[in-house]
């Protein structure tokens, strides 16, 4: 198993700095969902990780912890993540994206 980035929607949707999406070295990997968290009354959307593209460098963790100071991203073993986005389940829309979350590794 290997580590991938996992973003806490509750923290991210309350702040929405989008820094991790700008600093990720991999394209189309940290994406943004304008609607995420709004069902919980959180103000903004949230970033999420297409875990099949994440190389596990943890640059986003440094950026979130030290530049944004939001501490919303943790590196987690991919088989420990319950719900994650895979590229094949990501839908691009006019000004946002939407991912259907699934268990990334079959149990």
């Amino acid at each position, binding site marked *: 198993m290997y580590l991938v980035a996992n973003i806490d929607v509750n923290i991210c949707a309350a702040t929405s700095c*989008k820094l991790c*999406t*700008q*600093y*990720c*070295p*991999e*394209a*189309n990997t*940290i*994406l*943004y969902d*304008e609607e995420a968290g709004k069902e919980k009354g959180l103000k903004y959307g949230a*970033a999420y990780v297409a875990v099949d*593209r994440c*190389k*596990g*460098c*943890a*640059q986003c*963790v*440094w*950026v979130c912890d*030290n*530049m944004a100071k939001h501490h919303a991203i943790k590196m987690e073993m991919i088989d420990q993540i319950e719900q994650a986005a895979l*590229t*094949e389940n990501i839908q*691009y*829309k006019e*000004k*946002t*994206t939407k991912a259907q979350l699934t268990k990334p590794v079959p149990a």
Partner: protein
Amino acid sequence: MSLDYMKFTPGFGKFMPKEYRDLVEHGPFGRKVSVSQVGTFKEILEEHPMCAGCAMTLFIRLAMISFPNPEDTITVGTAGCGRLAISQAAIPFVYGNYGDQNGVASGLSRGLRLRFGDRPKDVVVMAGDGGTADIGFAQTLHSWFRKEKFTTIMLDNEVYGNTGGQESGMTNKNQVLKMAPLGKKFEKMDMVGMAKVAGCAYVATVVPNNPRRVESVIKKAVLIAREIGPTYIQAYTSCNIEYAIPTDKVMEDAKNVENDRYRFSEYITDEAKQYLAEVYGYKEYLPKPAQALTKS
């Protein structure tokens, strides 16, 4: 080299891979996107084999987002890590023999101008410090002396990272590397100074820890190269393998290096300023109103 080459042949769209369909329907072609919108549109850079956490990858990604007209852009590269990612983007990439990328780009740029006339077709060279300053040094400088109208971007990782860690002309003095165990004996080459002397209309040094600045620099360089003359960007893109930088500290290193010896700098000729102001509406380069005379 046009929006049409991205479109599906009628009836074939449903057979195309999802990534391709996303790119055609939600990519940056034919519309303006910016770094601040990243994560909400399909980027032209695809998956590639470059190392995890590579700052060069981040810079290339930001550059691809920043091209003013990606559908009218051709990249030219040469041997080195960067070409592993640059070649995996949905814009044409020409791979020159080691060091001849600026010669290839010269012919390409001239040919495109003959073929397409006034319609802007941007040629952007992206090569490493070895390809630009060492092995390709003569061709790089001569393209500048000839005032060839294209952008040269040096991905400066200050080492030959692909071949085990030999020193390059851009390595800092006294730097010890795997294949330079006694440390480099000479100073880092002043390519920025040479670019100015050789007649580049726009020269900038930049570090990828400020994405919006990278975007601004790339846009200016590409636009100026359309009409005014050669432009040069020198980007610090650390090699976290050869310099043993933990991947989660790459941006911390970039920040430290920027504060220490790789400060942002920008040189732009008056002609280029006037061009950006008049043709592309850059307010920062509009003539300042004359100061009101103060009564003594």
